[in-house]
């Protein structure tokens, strides 16, 4: 396949002259839904990255708006609390001139007992053509996709997947790593892996990108991942990754460290003695970060519990790209809304 712009070129960079003849065969996009990253092959992930470059260029314009999705209805249906993902999708859709409808399940007929399938049929009857959905139950967007005539974008389902987060994380890493590639780079995801849809989606995209991926946390929050890691060589298209509770080994020479939120609401099961103990043993502090490369990239998908999984001075350190993740989130979601909008009916 042929992509015409350097994958992670800065959006302000001049349009490159085509120095080498390229084949006329452009890649096509065939996915109607985005439910997880595991269905994207590498050329499709690259296409998302280059389309995100173009969206970054749009965001830098005096009028950061293009008419690509004019007349399209994008309905945002969130069954779980969210600020950045919901607002990010809304801003992304509006930058593409789509009409945006917001539904918070807490204030909808869902509280009167309406089923998920009924809600999906209702929003479709009300004109929804693209549905962005977050749900506390893993797999709920797959059910929605089976009953919805348009495109479903998963904005996070239970512990399962958060594909747009994984893609914006990959984009942000490529933007900040020397050479613009994560291949061969040591990437550490630190914290509550067990309850993390962010980690699960990132495992797929980062191993596909050739990263040396390490998952690190207390063993109670890594349950089952060692079996996934052991099985990964037998999964087509899946790369290897490491699972450890040894924080020193994980951080040694790391190129990227991503801290995950300790989800207080999911801590009822006695998996951690206390937040203080977690912070003392696994909190990302300046002292611990000294074991990583001097130019380590520090990330966090948010929202942060500062002082628990990440020290406040690390979150605001010059090496932290946490606010870049938020900005890139808008561009990645614009890219995905745009790519999915062209596929109807027969798409997968």
């Amino acid at each position, binding site marked *: 396949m042929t992509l015409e712009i350097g994958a992670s070129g800065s959006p302000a960079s001049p349009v490159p002259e085509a120095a080498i003849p390229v084949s*006329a065969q452009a890649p096509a996009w065939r996915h109607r839904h985005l439910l997880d990253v595991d269905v994207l092959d590498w050329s499709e992930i690259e296409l998302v990255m280059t389309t995100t470059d173009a969206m970054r260029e749009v965001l830098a314009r005096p009028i950061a708006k293009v008419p690509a999705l004019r007349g399209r209805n994008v309905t945002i249906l969130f069954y779980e609390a969210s600020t950045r993902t919901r607002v990010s999708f809304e801003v992304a859709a509006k930058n593409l001139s789509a009409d945006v409808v917001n539904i918070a399940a807490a204030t909808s007929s869902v509280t009167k007992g309406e089923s998920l399938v009924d809600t999906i049929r209702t929003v479709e009857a009300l004109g929804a053509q693209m549905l962005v959905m977050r749900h506390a139950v893993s797999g709920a967007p797959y059910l929605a996709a089976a009953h919805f005539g348009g495109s479903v974008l998963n904005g996070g389902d239970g512990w399962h997947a958060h594909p747009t987060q994984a893609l914006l994380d990959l984009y942000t890493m490529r933007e900040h790593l020397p050479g613009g590639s994560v291949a061969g780079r040591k990437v550490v995801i630190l914290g509550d892996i067990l309850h993390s849809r962010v980690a699960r989606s990132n495992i797929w995209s980062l191993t596909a990108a050739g990263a040396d991926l390490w998952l690190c946390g207390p063993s109670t929050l890594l349950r089952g991942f060692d079996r996934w890691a052991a099985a990964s060589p037998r999964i087509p298209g899946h790369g290897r990754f490491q699972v450890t509770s040894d924080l020193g080994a994980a951080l040694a020479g790391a190129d990227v460290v991503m801290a995950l939120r300790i989800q207080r609401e999911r801590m009822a099961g006695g998996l951690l003695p206390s937040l203080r103990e977690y912070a003392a043993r696994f909190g990302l502090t300046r002292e611990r970060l000294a074991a990583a490369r001097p130019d380590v990239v520090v990330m966090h998908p948010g929202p942060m519990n500062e002082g628990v999984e990440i020290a406040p001075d690390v979150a605001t350190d010059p090496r932290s790209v946490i606010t870049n993740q938020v900005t890139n989130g808008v561009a990645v979601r614009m890219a995905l809304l745009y790519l999915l909008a062209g596929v109807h009916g027969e798409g997968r």
Partner: protein
Amino acid sequence: MPMSGRQIMTVEEIRRAVIRISHEIVEKQAGTSGLVLVGIQRRGVPLARRIADAIAEHEGVRLPVGALDITFYRDDLSLIAQSPVVKGTDLPFDLNGSTVVLVDDVLYTGRTIRAAMDALVDFGRPRAIRLAVLIDRGHRELPIRADHVGKNVPTSREEVVKVHLVEVDGVDEVEIERLPAPLGETVGVSGTTG
């Protein structure tokens, strides 16, 4: 790129057409003041650079050249799936008050030019927008005409005009080819756009 159709412009003819267009542009503007060239991705961009080179040679003035991608301004969403790649927009100058010469390889239905004008006015308010194309093949679907044309080529809708440029395709030539069976609109495929 292998030749599969009938050649309608040679290297030399393309070179002379570019030089003539460069003279026409300067003549129409009565100079080069306020002029900028904007190539439409993809083959309009190298053509705009060639016109700028020719103007630099005979006027001694180097005009600013920009690149415009009209992908987000197309009027048919179903085209995204076929050709989703965005090639990038770069307009490194202020459009306000300038005279913009849009440059593209083939003028056909006029829909690409409509999209390009919509895109341009999002960046500013040019004093005037003009249009230069290498090939005008007719069959307009919108009230648009070119100010500067390299070659007028009468075609049927069953034919495809392919512009090849060294910068993109490794060779300079224009050929015309008859489609085996009537296909749908081919807007969005570089080199055959409207």
